[in-house]
């Protein structure tokens, strides 16, 4: 996991819950907490922080991850406006994940292990397939919601297939409305 992910999480936790909360999460996870954006760190660190946060905030872990994704989007939009500007809808933005956004991430953070999505349209719905040993479908869900916020759309996301329920991949069915 790239250090930038930890930095973003820290930024959001400090913003919404105060400096002390981040220190507390680090303590609870038994982590030292020196993350630099370009460095690579064990995925395990993130999972530990997430479960510590879930406990501290009395939230399900998936909820924490989703909150993280959704709130990270404005930070991305701030840092990389050129990725958002060409689009006027969540759908067209999301469709550039494989071809534009993730390649850009790889250029910025050599060695970043970003997932590959597959896309399909079913009537009004965008059907997005996700496969990753990290099983961070909630993070994807949060990012989708965040993108929806960015383009002023309300998203309805269903997950009929999920690795956490024993499936071999996840499927997110996304409906858009304004």
């Amino acid at each position, binding site marked *: 996991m790239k250090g930038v992910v930890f930095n973003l999480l820290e930024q959001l936790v400090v913003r919404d819950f105060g400096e002390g909360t981040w220190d507390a999460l680090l303590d609870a996870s038994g982590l030292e907490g020196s993350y630099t954006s370009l460095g690579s760190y064990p995925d395990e660190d993130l999972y530990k922080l997430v479960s510590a946060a879930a406990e501290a905030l009395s939230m399900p872990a998936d909820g924490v991850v989703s909150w993280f994704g959704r709130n990270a989007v404005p930070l991305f939009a701030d840092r990389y406006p050129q990725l958002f500007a*060409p*689009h006027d809808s969540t759908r*067209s933005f999301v469709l*550039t994940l494989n*071809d*534009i956004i993730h390649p850009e991430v790889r*250029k*910025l*953070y050599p060695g970043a292990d970003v997932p590959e999505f597959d896309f399909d349209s079913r009537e009004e719905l965008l059907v997005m397939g996700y496969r990753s040993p990290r099983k961070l479908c909630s993070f994807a869900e949060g990012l989708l919601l965040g993108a929806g916020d960015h383009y002023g759309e309300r998203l309805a996301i269903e997950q009929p297939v999920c690795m956490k329920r024993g499936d071999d991949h996840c499927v997110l069915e996304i409906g858009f409305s304004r």
Partner: protein
Amino acid sequence: MSEPALDVVERRLLRERRARREAEEIAERTTRALYDKQQELVLLEAVVLASNESSTVDEALQSAVDAVCAHTGWPVGHAYLRERSSGDLVPGTSWHIEGAHQFDAFRSTTERTTFSGGVGLPGRVLATGRAAWITDVTTDANFLRKNLGVRGAFAFPIHADGEMNAVLEFFSPSAVAPDPALLDVMAQIGRQLGRVVERIRAQEQIAHQATHDILTGLANRLLFLDRLELALARARRHGSVAALLFLDLDRFKDINDTLGHGAGDELLRSVADRLQGALRATDSVARFGGEEFTLARFGGDEFVVLCEELASENAAVRVAERVQESLRVPFLLEGAGHVITASIGIVIASGADQNAEDLLRDADIAMYRAKERGQGNWEIFDEELRKRALERVGTERALRQALDLGELRLHYQPVVSVEDGRMRSVEALVRWQHPERGLVPPAEFIPIAEESALILQIGAWTLREACEQAFRWRARFGDEAPLPVSVNVSARQLAQRELPEIVRQTLADTGLSAADLAIELTETALIEDSSVPAASLRGLKALGVKILLDDFGTGYSSLSHLQRFPIDALKIDRSFMMHLGSGEDNRAIVRAIVAMASALGLEVVAEGVETADQAAEAQSLGCDWAQGYYFARPAPPAEIEALIAPVTAALLGSP
């Protein structure tokens, strides 16, 4: 040492955090820039390598389109080509497409779409000469190929030799914000490709020049021979009919001589155009079997046509006739219409072991045969022609030797007074004393000599020999000598500017007086559309040599010749004598010729007098002189001397 206050610690922490964040951003930017530079280098290297290995412009464009797509990750790339004639951009054949059928509609639409300056994405590049980027074509007012699955787009030009040559365009299925850095790299690629296009064009031009005729743009001999060899191999393999047409313009030299080489070149270009038109505009019947033609110019006024996949041997004749028909409308040169015809030799590739050079030679032989039959004819090569051509080549070689070995002889035929049959002068006639064939009549070798420069050598030899003989006769017989001696001069000799000088030198060398020499020429020699024969005649006349017009009354007789040229005597063609008995018409013509000659102060010689009746007729029609078997046959000098000797001997009282 006291503990620092908490707010101080917090400020330090904040400073540290900010410093870390800045350091990270610098590192990120540097990493990103490094990545971009590396990718750019990879791309440029790929383009340079691939384009330098390309031997055609299309190949170079294809490799560039592929490389740019690989670099950008964009799935669609294409090259529009600038059409020289219209200046518009027409779809090219270099495509890069990823995805099964996603972009089929886009491609087929593009393949049907031409852009002029300012229109659409390629037209914008054409108009400005600079790269263009469209973030999202669906919201762009000036983008034509909408709703075909592409959104982000950019395009850049390739300039070669100072003008735009192509526009490369790339498409993404998503909207993409402009990337100035990418366009900078594309500009570099554009420059690199421009240099490659210039190099390839130069190479292609050199290759084209090596295989094409510069004047007409047609294939040249080199390329034609290559095609011919291939065609022969194909014809052998498939048993199909191929033919070769060898075409030579009739009287092209006249156009060059009278109108100048500029007009000659213009004519050749027009002929090339007409021939191409004739070979393209095949009617549906002739098309049967899918005829194919290759047209070439071999230099001068020689054109050749290779006909392949002919339905039959007759089809080759139809092609020849179509070609001749295409020349029928007069050519406009220097503001006037000129009728140009072509003689065509045809040879059919028999499928046997024929090589290209043999076929060309045979077609050439057939062409000469066609020319002999008059202007605007065609002739098919066959065995008979081959035999005759071989004989002709053999005769020419033997004749050349004959000159060296002294096998040529001069016989002299007396020209006599019709009144009393007394010899007045003689005509020198060349004979060939062949070691095996005996005495060869001039009709069997003079025409062959006339086709080459051999006639000039024979003419010079005849002149010298006759002058030497005449000098001896004058010395020996004084006033009784049968002089002047007349020597035949061919059209080719007369077309030599130096003829008067040759005659003057010969007279000087032999000591003969100019008054003892007469030159006989035919009217055909005078009608050459050139000022040289007339100048030669005037030069000869100035020397004091007499001029005789031979074979008068046939062919191109024209009264204007008698006025324009300094002529002393006419020799009425033998055909009039032969047919005098058969009607009043000939008699009337001869009477008119004699009356006209007398009015112009010209002497008249009746040629071909073979009977006493004809001699009487000639006399009654007013001819002063006659020549023919009735009076005397051509004979060696000794026999001529025998005709004079008794009289002279009697006068001088010697034995």
